């Protein structure tokens, strides 16, 4: 190979490589989604349902039309935010499992604005601000415990989820309670409700809050010194310290931003989900949204843009699941099975290596077969 030729070849390969490695994470996520759906299909088959029909109903129900798509996006709205909670902290090297609780606190704070009379616009802002602050404050306690006392944030955030849940129940039914209907809290007044985007669906302006927040996070992580510090601290804390980065501050920051995102998730549901615009005891409207956010984060590869796409996928599973039940008779739980299978598949490290491994394995097998016949092996380029 002449130097020029090698150079040219190398430049071409480099281009291809960049595209492919850029796509690697996306491919892995796609594979996980496919595997998850396959596992679901196999189980349906075993239990005597028709997977093909079920999935058709699911896809129809999730993406089949403007109405369906709107509902899917409505589901995606809080998922984007709770996924960002997990990803932000993971990027900084911390496991924040507390999105669920932080979201509850945000929701309750949003409900509190029912007691103020403010002009629309300002009322909305105050609501979002309240929610974000409450979420951030709720996440600060585990963060402080971690940084000052070394308490594992995994454990403390999970514990704080439970505290938030029962505290929320108490507050909803005792303090913020609707004087007329004692099973729910006061309703957020119209001046603070996020307008519905598509009539007859739950899709509200909340989606803009989610997407905007995701874009802000994206910009923060890759285009500001603060985000740079956060990523450095997450990838190599020792080197970050050497680089003059204060790891504790970046960790705090990641928890604050994560908590804000989760709090906002609570707000988008309280302020943007018809018809009640109020919290119920046990938070049925947003139950598990925080946990599902972690699955979304995983499939979205902890990248804000990936998260938006993954949230639309997961949102579709949730919103289309109902149709699957109605049209194909498949129980709603099957959706959870699919989600679970996806998460399990995603957690296999370096999933993409499966392909080279299969390739190498096959080569080896072929070779051993040929060697068995006593032939010399001629191994060409791979």
């Amino acid at each position, binding site marked *: *190979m002449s130097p020029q030729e*090698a150079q040219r*070849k*190398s*430049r*071409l*390969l*480099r*281009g*291809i*490589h*960049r595209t492919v*490695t850029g796509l690697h994470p996306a491919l892995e996520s796609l594979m996980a989604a496919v595997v998850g759906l396959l596992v679901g299909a196999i189980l349906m088959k075993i239990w005597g349902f028709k997977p093909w029909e079920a999935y058709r109903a699911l896809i129809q129900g999730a993406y089949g039309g403007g109405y369906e798509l709107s509902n899917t996006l409505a589901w995606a709205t809080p998922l984007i935010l709770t996924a960002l909670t997990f990803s932000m902290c993971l990027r900084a090297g911390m496991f924040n499992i507390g999105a669920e609780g932080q979201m509850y606190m945000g929701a309750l704070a949003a409900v509190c604005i029912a007691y103020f009379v403010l002009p629309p616009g300002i009322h909305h802002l105050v609501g979002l601000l309240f929610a974000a602050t409450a979420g951030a404050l709720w996440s600060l306690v585990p963060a402080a415990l971690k940084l000052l006392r070394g308490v594992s944030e995994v454990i403390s955030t999970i514990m704080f989820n439970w505290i938030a849940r029962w505290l929320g129940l108490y507050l909803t039914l005792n303090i913020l309670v609707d004087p007329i209907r004692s099973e729910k809290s006061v309703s957020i007044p119209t001046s603070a409700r996020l307008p519905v985007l598509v009539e007859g669906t739950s899709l509200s302006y909340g989606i803009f809050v989610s997407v905007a927040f995701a874009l802000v996070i994206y910009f923060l992580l890759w*285009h*500001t*010194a*603060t985000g*740079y*510090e956060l*990523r*450095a601290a997450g*990838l*190599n804390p*020792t*080197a*970050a*310290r*050497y*680089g*003059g*980065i*204060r790891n504790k501050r970046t960790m705090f920051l990641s928890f604050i931003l994560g908590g804000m995102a989760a709090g906002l998730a609570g707000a988008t549901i309280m302020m943007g989900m018809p018809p009640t615009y109020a919290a119920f005891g046990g938070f049925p409207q947003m139950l598990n949204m925080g946990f599902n956010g972690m699955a979304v984060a995983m499939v979205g590869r902890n990248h804000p843009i990936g998260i938006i796409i993954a949230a639309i996928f997961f949102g579709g599973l949730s919103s289309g699941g109902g149709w699957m039940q109605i049209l194909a008779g498949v129980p709603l739980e099957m959706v959870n099975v699919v989600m679970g299978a996806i998460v399990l598949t995603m957690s296999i490290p370096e999933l993409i290596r499966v392909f080279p491994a299969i390739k*190498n394995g096959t080569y*080896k097998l072929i*070779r051993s077969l040929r060697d068995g016949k006593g032939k*010399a*092996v001629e*191994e*060409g*380029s*791979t």
Partner: protein
Amino acid sequence: MSDEHAARNSEMFLRAEKITKVYSDGTVALKEASVEIRSHEIIGLLGENGAGKTTFTKILSGLLPPTSGRVISPAGPVRFSSPREALDFGIGMVHQHFALVGTFTAAENVALSYARPFSRIQLAKTIEQLEALMEESGLGVPLDVPVEKLAVGEQQRVEILKVLSRNVDLLILDEPTSVLTPLEVDELFNLLRRLRDAGKSIILITHKLKEVQDVTNRIIVLRQGELVGDVQTASATTEQLAQMMVGQAIEAEAGAVELSDEELPASRTLKAVNRTVDSILQVENLTIRGNTGEIAVDDISFEIHGGEIFGIAGVEGNGQTELVESLTGLRVPDSGTATINGTNILGVDPRQIYRLGVAHIPEDRWELGLVLPFTLAENAILGVHRWEQFRGALSVLKWGRINQHVKQLMERFEIRAAGPGAPAKSLSGGNQQKLIVGRELAKNPDIIVASQPTRGLDIGSAYYIRQTLLDMREKGRAILLVSADLDEVLAHADRVAIMFEGRFMEVCSPADLTRERVGMLMGGVTEAKETA
């Protein structure tokens, strides 16, 4: 084969045939390299940074598959899909960067390399075996301390022991000497000679020509992925080797070879003209504890003036690491004071220390110096990412400016990489080092704390870095040079401290020292014993 006669009773052990390696990002690291490896020989593998040495040996040891070409043993072609398979075949490699489990002890690490589930019994056996091996090889390490608490040099020894304990036929050592002291190098070489005489093959990668000429039988040279030389050691001159490595064009660098390798005191002619009266860095009664709580630095005092290089020589693990970490904000010392121009620097955030004009070239480039998954550009601003030239309003990074800066760095320090966007982990060892050194020196610092600044650099690059340090001294900067490379310290420092077990055995001008005496002091032997 023309050089058949050299090996008396040697036979072919392995032949690499037309090995080409194209990394997945398109970097052509090897171009049809063919080498025959025989028993009873030590082969020196030379080449500039990024020439493909590590790649070549990784392919031999089963860590990387070749893109094309094959490896042939007398029994037929072989193909390893993992280092374990290569080990079973009898090929072991000690890597440029270590593959040790930090929280495990040396013994556990070795036991781990044998089999997956390792038991107490096996561990006890391993310890026994290791003790015998240490005795025999002269490589000593504490076996019961987590390896992450060991100095880099000690970790290196663990790696060598790990492979030796497997009783391999082909031992590959990727720059093993860059972290060893001269005495340790001698010991290692004696060991290698013994192994050779016992019929083993050894491939030794190093950037030190003297070492290659000292210990090898045969030398192969890679240049930009091509095998450009395969000669008997006895028949090759230093100039020839240097020429093979860099190609014909570069004349000036040939001079560099001689300076760094032979005429050590050459640089002393431009001694300390600009030395300032006042000291810039002042250290008094500094005592520091190591990771395990033992006293690592014991009541040390010194000062460095502007326009002066203060060298610290010594076997690694005698407190140098702790001293440097304390002076750069990474470790809080027990007692004592350290000031830069009167400002306290102990227990202070690294960020504040950098503001006083300090640059730090750390000894551990993978742990401290780089964020490996980050790109070259991202790594090039580590520590300076908040500088105004890179950061605008709202702390927005100016990537345009940063990339420009990186390109300048790449040019000035000859960092060979696919581009500013290449991840740091895809760089060759030497190029990673150049990236760190370049980043730190580009800060235009007043004080440079340099730990092993030229470790792993090829001769030309090492020469350039040393020259840059000398230039900075001329400009009145203060430099603390910590190095296991005795020649480097002796040739460049204005004053040298020899460190042993946390203390300075002696502080004096290198002119007053002989290599032998330094060697003794490094081993803790004082004058009294010497004259006795």
